[in-house]
């Protein structure tokens, strides 16, 4: 995948004896979530991050990237240390202040952090190295070519001289900056950090309780708040009696807040402020509220599913149309029809939503576990009638993100509450609040019609996708298919007649980005149906896919999302080989495969399952990864394991359902993710690749569910087309 938009702008503002270098990151591959935020003015400068080389030779990378377990602080430090020839421990990655006037992009999402940063950060690191060598050579009056540099020390062997970066920084700071486009990058063969497993810098604080998550923020004299929200979307309190709540010891105040409109999407509700979380919880329980359940009070999962099935039967907007599907489907070839259905899903981060705010007259200070500190700032400022620079936002560790912590709803509520309380206050969402007022993964229905010829060659692929779209919720004027068709429109198999149509289904249920977004449902549908075509063709599902992943000689990517068939075939072959594809399994066991590209990374996964009556067990998952250039293999492995488990929780167990307009699941009893006894062993096999960095937070997820469904079919002949999987009703 050629990423041509990358550019690197360098400018220095040289302080006393220190160097400051600005970095402009590339654009993420995902058409970003930021498009949904309020339109931003062009920033006054082009930088996303700064490198600060300090007089003691230590180097700080100041960047607004949220750490939610993906290991970004470690990965960025590795890239910088590699090119700058620094000791890894001399580099720190520090959270940037929330200053959109200084930093152009502040969000963390779309699996974008490494792919945006890799080349710009290498060039900036190489610039630091070049400056230090130039300063040393000038000081010693020797040619630069005779100087060597390692671990923050420049050496001149011929004269046995050496100087540390700390000793050189003042002289280096007075030099003109080299042309960053021409600065020499290290030979990848000489990498000592990039591509080598490196322990994560955030882990020690996470094994002793000292890591500070949003809910761990403690400010002197702080209070705690909880909100009772209408169970239905768009409803509100018709009347409420606060007397019992106010009688709860520790409760300080009870008041109502209105819902905030489009773009923030808070529910509004009745706020209980108390001197402890427990008192706020007890106070909330004691509220007597009569809800006006609003216009969406009759919505149900049955109704939504039926609307999706109907929409999948109707002609939709044609978003891909190769050849002539109709002609082939009607001319008597062997035809396969299938309907796939996927439910709404909650993110269910382990740390429920929370945020701490201190509104002090004409300014506010916020501590937020957020993927989008600038959106927090903008929302809080808007609610308080302040200018964004008057709102200080500190980003804490995130107890899980998965897209949920991109949202500005809890910050909007906090601003409303903080303004009234006038003291530091932590807004705490209960697990029940978190599960019933999420922004859910859309529900979808996929209708397929396919055809194979007598020799087993596929002739036609017709996919109609109906979904409760994300864009349809956020912006009814936007094309609703925008964030629904990824992974379906790029269907990568060489089939001569292909059509994808889309239909939107409206709902009052809030929807947004859930780990891997639309790839989570399209990956399942596409990789299950290609399996159905393989079986209809009488072919081995692995060989069938392999034969259809053909890279034409003149192949060029049409855009950043285009799938390179050769790279997908590469991981398919690697996964099959490592899994022992074709090796006999005991009766009742089966092996399934799925391959999928998203966020610039290629994954193939093989599942082995054993079916026993109405139950099944996943015995083993084998994943093959081609994410381009690997920064930290440890993080690549860890993200692969985590995304597979997240995907399997949805495949095996989780769904969000609606009754009378309200979400039925309120806690982990009814929405129970995979636990340790259900977690299969996962083997991860990496590909050495010199391609551009792909994302790693999400792309291991989409192939997990279809690999398991395909394995179940191989084991017992049942085709699972509905999530979560149920063998009994399949």
């Amino acid at each position, binding site marked *: 995948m050629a990423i041509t938009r990358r550019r690197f702008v360098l400018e220095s503002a040289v302080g006393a004896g220190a160097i400051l270098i600005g970095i402009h990151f590339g654009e993420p591959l995902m058409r970003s979530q930021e498009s949904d935020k309020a339109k931003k003015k062009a920033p006054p400068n082009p930088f996303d991050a700064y490198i600060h080389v300090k007089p003691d030779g230590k180097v700080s990378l100041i960047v607004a990237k949220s750490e*939610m*377990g*993906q*290991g970004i602080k470690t990965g960025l430090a590795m890239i910088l240390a590699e090119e700058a020839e620094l000791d890894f421990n001399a580099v720190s990655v520090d959270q940037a202040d929330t200053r959109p006037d200084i930093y152009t992009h502040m969000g963390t999402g779309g699996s974008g952090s490494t792919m945006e940063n890799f080349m710009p950060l290498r060039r900036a690191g190489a610039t630091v190295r070049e400056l230090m060598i130039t300063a040393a050579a000038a000081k010693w009056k020797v040619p630069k070519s005779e100087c060597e540099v390692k671990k923050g020390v420049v050496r001149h062997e011929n004269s046995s001289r050496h100087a540390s970066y700390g000793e050189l920084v003042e002289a280096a700071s007075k030099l003109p900056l080299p042309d960053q486009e021409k600065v020499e990058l290290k030979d990848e063969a000489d990498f000592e950090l990039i591509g080598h497993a490196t*322990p*994560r810098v*955030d*882990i*020690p*604080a*996470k*094994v*002793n*309780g*000292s*890591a*500070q*998550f949003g*809910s*761990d923020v*403690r400010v002197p004299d702080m209070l*705690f708040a909880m909100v009772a929200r209408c169970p239905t979307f768009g409803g509100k309190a018709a009347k409420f009696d606060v007397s019992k709540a106010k009688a709860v*010891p*520790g409760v300080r105040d009870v008041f109502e807040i209105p819902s905030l409109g489009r773009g923030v999407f808070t529910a509004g509700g009745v706020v209980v402020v108390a001197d*402890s*979380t*427990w*008192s706020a919880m007890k106070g909330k329980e004691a509220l007597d509220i009569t809800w006006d359940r609003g216009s969406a009070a009759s919505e149900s999962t049955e109704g939504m599913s039926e609307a999706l099935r109907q929409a999948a039967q109707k002609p939709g907007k044609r978003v891909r149309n190769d050849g002539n599907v109709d002609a082939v489907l009607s001319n008597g070839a062997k035809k396969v029809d299938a309907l796939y259905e996927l439910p709404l899903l909650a993110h269910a*981060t*382990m*740390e*429920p939503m929370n945020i701490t705010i201190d509104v002090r007259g004409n300014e506010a200070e916020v501590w937020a576990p957020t993927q989008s500190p600038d959106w927090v700032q903008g929302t809080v400022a808007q609610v308080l009638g302040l200018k964004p620079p008057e709102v200080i936002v500190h980003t804490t*560790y995130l*107890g*899980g*993100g*998965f897209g949920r912590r991109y949202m500005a709803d809890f910050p909007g509520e906090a601003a409303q509450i903080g303004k009234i309380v006038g003291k530091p206050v932590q807004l*705490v969402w*209960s*697990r029940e609040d978190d599960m019933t007022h999420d922004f859910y993964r859309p529900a979808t229905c996929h209708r397929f019609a396919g055809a194979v010829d007598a020799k087993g060659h596929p002739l036609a692929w017709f996919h109609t996708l109906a979904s409760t779209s994300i864009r349809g919720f956020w912006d009814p004027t936007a094309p609703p298919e925008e964030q629904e068709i990824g992974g379906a429109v790029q269907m990568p198999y060489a089939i001569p007649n292909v059509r994808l149509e889309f239909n939107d289904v409206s709902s009052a249920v809030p929807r947004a980005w859930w780990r891997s977004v639309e790839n989570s449902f399209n990956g399942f549908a596409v990789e299950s149906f290609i399996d159905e075509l393989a079986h209809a063709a009488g072919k081995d599902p692995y060989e069938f896919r392999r034969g259809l992943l053909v890279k034409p000689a003149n192949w060029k990517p049409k855009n950043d999302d285009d799938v390179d068939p050769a790279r997908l075939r590469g991981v398919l072959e690697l996964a099959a080989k490592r899994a022992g594809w074709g090796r006999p399994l005991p009766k009742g066991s089966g092996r399934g495969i799925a391959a999928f590209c998203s966020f610039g990374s290629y994954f193939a996964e093989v599942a082995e399952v054993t079916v026993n009556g109405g139950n099944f067990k996943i015995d083993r998952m084998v994943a093959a990864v081609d994410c381009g250039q690997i920064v930290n293999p440890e993080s690549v492995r*860890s*993200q692969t*394991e*985590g*995304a*597979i*488990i*997240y995907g399997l*929780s949805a495949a095996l167990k989780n769904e969000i359902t609606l009754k009378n307009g309200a979400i039925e699941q309120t*806690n*982990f009893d009814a929405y*129970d*993710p*995979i*636990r*340790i*006894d259900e*977690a299969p*062993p*996962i083997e991860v096999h990496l590909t050495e690749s010199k391609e551009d960095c792909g994302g790693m937070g999400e792309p291991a997820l989409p192939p997990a569910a279809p690999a398991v469904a395909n394995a179940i079919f191989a084991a017992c002949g049942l085709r699972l087309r509905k999530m979560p999987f149920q063998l009994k009703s399949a």
Partner: protein
Amino acid sequence: MSAIHLVINNNSHDLEVAPDTPLLWVLRDKLNMTGTKYGCGMGLCGACTVHLDGEAVRSCQTPVSSVGAKKITTIEGLSANNTHPVQRAWIAEQVPQCGYCQPGQIMSAAALLAKTPKPSDTQIDSAMGGNLCRCGMYQRIRKAIHRAAQSAGKGA
């Protein structure tokens, strides 16, 4: 409100608190010991796990009045400098991602190993089944428990 005496990580605390308050919120809000986490409030996720006289309990389901004279150990009290075998194993296996559930995971694992120094996979499943990890690090948790069992066996 009642006067409550607690021994937490070998330190004595005297507090005034409503007796039905879960130990979790006493730790987090009264004592600012925030290593112990809130995840579900129903004993379903294990993020709030602490030890009472060495037994793993869910502090969100433990009214402070029920603690009595039992000694409380929290994640902050497991070791001073990440030297407990479970913490060392957690670092060696690079277990945490987001890390929010890990204090609870570690306390459950430490309680398991104190009773069962060489747990089988089945014993691990049984002892750790109440601890959710949404980042899905179960394979690493299992490996880390086996590693901690081995290192403890060597007297490390």
